[in-house]
């Protein structure tokens, strides 16, 4: 059954043949010489009209009959045990219909950050719920706390966790014999420790033997996701079935949590509806406590409950990108080849220790790497996956090390140095595009030579997003000529719905406006979560297959009625044509009318595995140009060139938007965003959008996006996602550009005017002795 075909894979001038054994009834990927009518076109998003007119209904906009309002009481203390929660007064307050406590529902009596959930109330109005919340009496046992990794790592620091949980836990290489949230088992861990010691010795020797060693200590801050629509859902029980209009980036995951026997809700049936979602950026994979609380309050109240977080709850409790402290040493030889890299890094995911890793040992050929990484517990809101988890913080350190190494080698150009240590088949072609478009070699007033200095910087990215199994799509062609494609996944603003529709339209041979799309409903076929930039890589091959087989069924009907050969028929531009391109005289609509049934419905799953393809990863290069005022320390990012690839581009316009968005969040991360914790009270001080600074229109650079279309052959659509890759390199490129502009380097983001001025003030005269060995800075 498996058919073997030869396809072309590659991009630009780099194509080669690849033999592929098609699996599970799959069809051949589109080929470079193939004329496509829909795919590859800059088409407006299908949900744009609803969004620009305010008619798109998000979870926050739902208002089912009888709906009441939920509120969560949060801990004001950063580290406390909940002794008791007294709801008696609150329950008697006007309008209160349901209450619960976190110790009862979640069996968790610890509040390990200021903002931790304590209890919840649902009342007829928001004001009533607020008033009742103030009447809840909680008795806390207050403990000392740590809200920074520096305090948490000190000897004798207050314990963040409970039981025997240590504040600092090695997370890579993985501890042996470690139980959930616990410490390593010393006996079982000895082997790992031995291997680590051997590795350290080996890499230290390589560093000592290298011509040049550069080293640096880098710090990145905690960034919050701050999606505009907060987390939560409107929950309603209808005849025993739970319906949740949820703000989620995983409709099926959300349903799974509420129906699971291990969860708190245990609904026998649950339907999650998320047609529009106001952003997620990695923070909305789980139903979260707020989702569970909403469902339970609605059950108790017997009416629908709206349980959306307020902004403070969102900023403190709904996830963040962990900070990082990274110490690195890199050994390089005079020929420009990296020999070895030593990394020690620490980061805080809040009260746990997992998930705070920094990806600082990838992208380039780095020689032998000795890396040890620690998670550090702090009494802060928990981290969650945040757009390319670990990568922007890792890139910030690694890419500056790359520049420092290049400069230490008698000024080898940073781009040439990267090329020497890079073998990515796509990225090697992307450097020159970035170099040319940013004007890399243009004369600039740099190095702190004037009051206003400019500089350029470069950095790379890498991603793995061809998708995988786990999606089905249903295509329905009705007798009246209408076409619908359905998949239950959500579109969090990335353009998933539009791309799914475009793939189906292309395959069916009809324009996009003849296809209607249905998404964000778990009653429809299984779809992926919006994570890992794999959504469309996972979804679109299923969409294309369903469309393909639906078209075949339609053409079989046509062939049968007309006495034609079905293998000689196809549909193009809404006309039924023959293989030689001639028109049969039938339109798509005519063909549909030949059906006996009301409709053809085809449900197809995506093949589980991907083909070998051209490259397993997508790459990218970004170059930034900055202007620094040497007197005020203000950094302005003037321009960012973002060269990006993501397999075959379905819609270059929405792809471009993803890249621009990633760059803007990256600049925001580099210059302004920062969670600020009060050292004395242990609370987040900027749990709003006023003091938590997100880049605005006045600070937004010009962004020049260059998309490289790659026929990667990994699936029938060859699509790779593009949500995460564009944020990886931005802060690093900006930091390198700032160093170029002011002639000294900043090792910490956000790059505030204060830090710039301090760096300029502490800039020491270059010591010629530094040049041979050691860091330039």
């Amino acid at each position, binding site marked *: 059954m498996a058919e073997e075909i030869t396809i072309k894979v590659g991009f630009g001038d780099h194509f080669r043949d690849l033999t592929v054994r098609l699996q599970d009834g799959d069809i051949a990927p589109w080929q470079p010489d193939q004329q496509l009518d829909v795919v590859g076109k800059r088409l*407006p*998003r299908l*949900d*744009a*009209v*609803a*969004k*620009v*007119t*305010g*008619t*798109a*209904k*998000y979870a*926050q*906009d739902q*208002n089912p009959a009888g709906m009441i309002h939920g509120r969560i009481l949060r801990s004001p203390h950063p580290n406390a045990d909940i002794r008791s929660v007294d709801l008696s007064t609150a329950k008697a307050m006007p309008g209160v219909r349901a209450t619960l406590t976190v110790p009862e529902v979640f069996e968790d009596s610890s509040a390990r950050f200021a903002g931790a959930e304590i209890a919840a109330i649902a009342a007829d*109005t928001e*004001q*009533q719920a607020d*008033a009742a919340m103030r009447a809840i009496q909680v008795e806390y046992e207050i403990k000392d706390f740590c809200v920074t990794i520096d305090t948490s790592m000190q000897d004798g620091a207050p314990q963040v966790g409970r039981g025997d949980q240590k504040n600092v836990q090695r997370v890579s290489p993985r501890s042996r014999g470690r139980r959930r949230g616990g410490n390593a088992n010393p006996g079982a861990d000895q082997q790992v420790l031995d291997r680590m010691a051997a590795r350290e010795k080996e890499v230290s020797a390589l560093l000592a033997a290298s011509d040049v060693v550069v080293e640096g200590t880098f710090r990145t801050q905690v960034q919050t996701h*701050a*999606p*505009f*629509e*907060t987390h939560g859902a409107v929950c309603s029980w209808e005849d025993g079935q739970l319906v949740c209009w949820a703000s989620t980036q995983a409709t099926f995951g959300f349903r799974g949590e509420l129906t699971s026997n291990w969860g708190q809700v245990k609904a026998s049936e649950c339907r999650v509806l998320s047609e*529009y*979602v*106001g*952003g997620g*950026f990695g923070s909305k994979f789980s139903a979260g406590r707020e989702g569970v609380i909403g469902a339970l309050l609605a059950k108790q109240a017997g009416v629908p409950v709206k349980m959306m977080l*307020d*902004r403070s709850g969102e900023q403190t409790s709904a996830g963040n990108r962990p900070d990082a402290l990274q110490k690195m040493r890199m050994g390089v030889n005079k020929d420009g080849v990296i020999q070895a890299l030593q990394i020690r890094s620490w980061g805080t995911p809040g009260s746990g220790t997992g998930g705070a890793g920094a990806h600082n040992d990838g992208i380039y050929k780095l020689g032998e790497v000795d890396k040890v990484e620690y998670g550090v517990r702090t009494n802060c809101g928990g981290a969650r996956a945040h757009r390319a988890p670990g990568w922007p913080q890792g890139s910030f350190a690694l890419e500056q090390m790359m520049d420092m190494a290049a400069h230490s080698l008698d000024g080898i150009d940073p781009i040439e140095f990267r090329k020497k240590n890079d073998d990515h088949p796509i990225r090697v072609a992307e450097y020159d595009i970035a170099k040319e478009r940013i004007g890399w070699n243009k004369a600039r007033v740099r190095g702190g030579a004037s009051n206003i200095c400019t500089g350029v910087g470069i950095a790379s990215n890498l991603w793995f997003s061809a998708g995988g199994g786990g999606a089905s799509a249903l295509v329905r062609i009705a007798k009246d000529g209408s076409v619908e494609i359905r998949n239950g996944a959500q579109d*969090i*603003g*990335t*353009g998933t719905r539009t791309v799914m529709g475009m793939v189906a339209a292309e395959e069916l041979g009809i324009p996009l406006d003849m296809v209607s799309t249905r998404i964000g409903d778990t009653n429809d076929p299984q779809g992926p979560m919006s994570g890992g930039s794999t959504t469309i890589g996972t979804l679109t091959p299923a969409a294309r297959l369903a469309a393909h087989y639906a078209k075949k069924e339609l053409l079989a009907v046509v062939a049968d009625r007309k006495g034609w050969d079905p293998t000689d028929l196809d549909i193009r531009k809404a006309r039924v044509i023959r293989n030689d391109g001639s028109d049969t005289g039938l339109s798509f609509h005519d063909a549909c009318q030949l059906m006996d049934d009301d409709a053809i419905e085809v449900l197809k799953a995506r093949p589980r595995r991907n083909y070998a393809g051209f490259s397993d990863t997508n790459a990218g290069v970004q170059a930034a140009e900055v202007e620094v005022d040497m007197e005020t320390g203000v950094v302005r990012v003037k321009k960012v060139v973002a060269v990006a690839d993501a397999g075959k581009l379905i819609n270059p*316009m*929405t792809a*471009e*938007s*993803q890249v*621009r*968005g*990633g*760059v*803007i*969040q990256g600049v925001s991360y580099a210059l302004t965003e920062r969670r600020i914790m009060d050292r004395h009270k242990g609370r987040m001080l900027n749990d*709003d*959008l*006023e003091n938590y600074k*997100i*880049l*605005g*229109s*006045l600070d*937004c650079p*010009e*962004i020049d996006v260059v998309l490289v279309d790659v026929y990667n052959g990994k699936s029938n659509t060859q699509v790779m996602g593009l949500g995460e890759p564009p944020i990886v390199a931005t802060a690093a490129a900006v930091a390198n550009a700032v160093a170029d502009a002011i002639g000294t380097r900043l090792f910490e983001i956000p790059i505030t005017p204060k830090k710039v001025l301090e760096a300029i003030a502490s800039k020491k005269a270059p010591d010629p002795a530094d040049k041979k060995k050691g860091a330039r800075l």
Partner: protein
Amino acid sequence: MDKKPEEPPEGVSRRLFLKGAGVAAAAVSVAQLPSDVQATSGAEDEPTILGPGPVPIQLRINGVDGQAEAAPSTTLLDFLRDHQGLTGAKRVCDRGSCGACTVLLDGRTVDSCSMLAIDAVGSEITTVEGIGTPENLSDLQQAFIEKDALQCGFCTPGMVVSCTALLKENPTPDREQIRRGISGNICRCGTYQNIIEAVEHVSRKGGK
């Protein structure tokens, strides 16, 4: 009694003092207030006490009179969303720093989360729904669609309203003026450049 209107008393019981900062707006609007909302004491200098229970509030929204019973403490945003079913304007920061709740009040942009519905009595309110409909899009909305000036779409209604106001004030803004014009609106997905292009597109075509 608490005499300082800028420090409202704690708790659910709210009093509205038509004094101090609110007096100008009140003087204009009181005539349009339904009779049972108007001051019952009769004396001009006596404070009018409304609430905490619901009172009838009538606002002119998108050219239509919309009436509902709402607590006097209801913000304009909540009145639009919860009492009129106009959910285009969004509650995002809830304190006037992000612009997602932007509406027009007599042609000028306001953060509807940060003003009371009763303070909008007598004014002409325009929400995103009043700027254009799916069947009858404004030129700007059309340009937003064509330039992909939206991603998740949650800031989009506020952006559309702000850009509409900007173009009304200055039909041919340059890039810097557009940036300034939308500087009160934050977009988390990062659509600023596309929005600027959309406004420029409309400006070039002489539309609105």
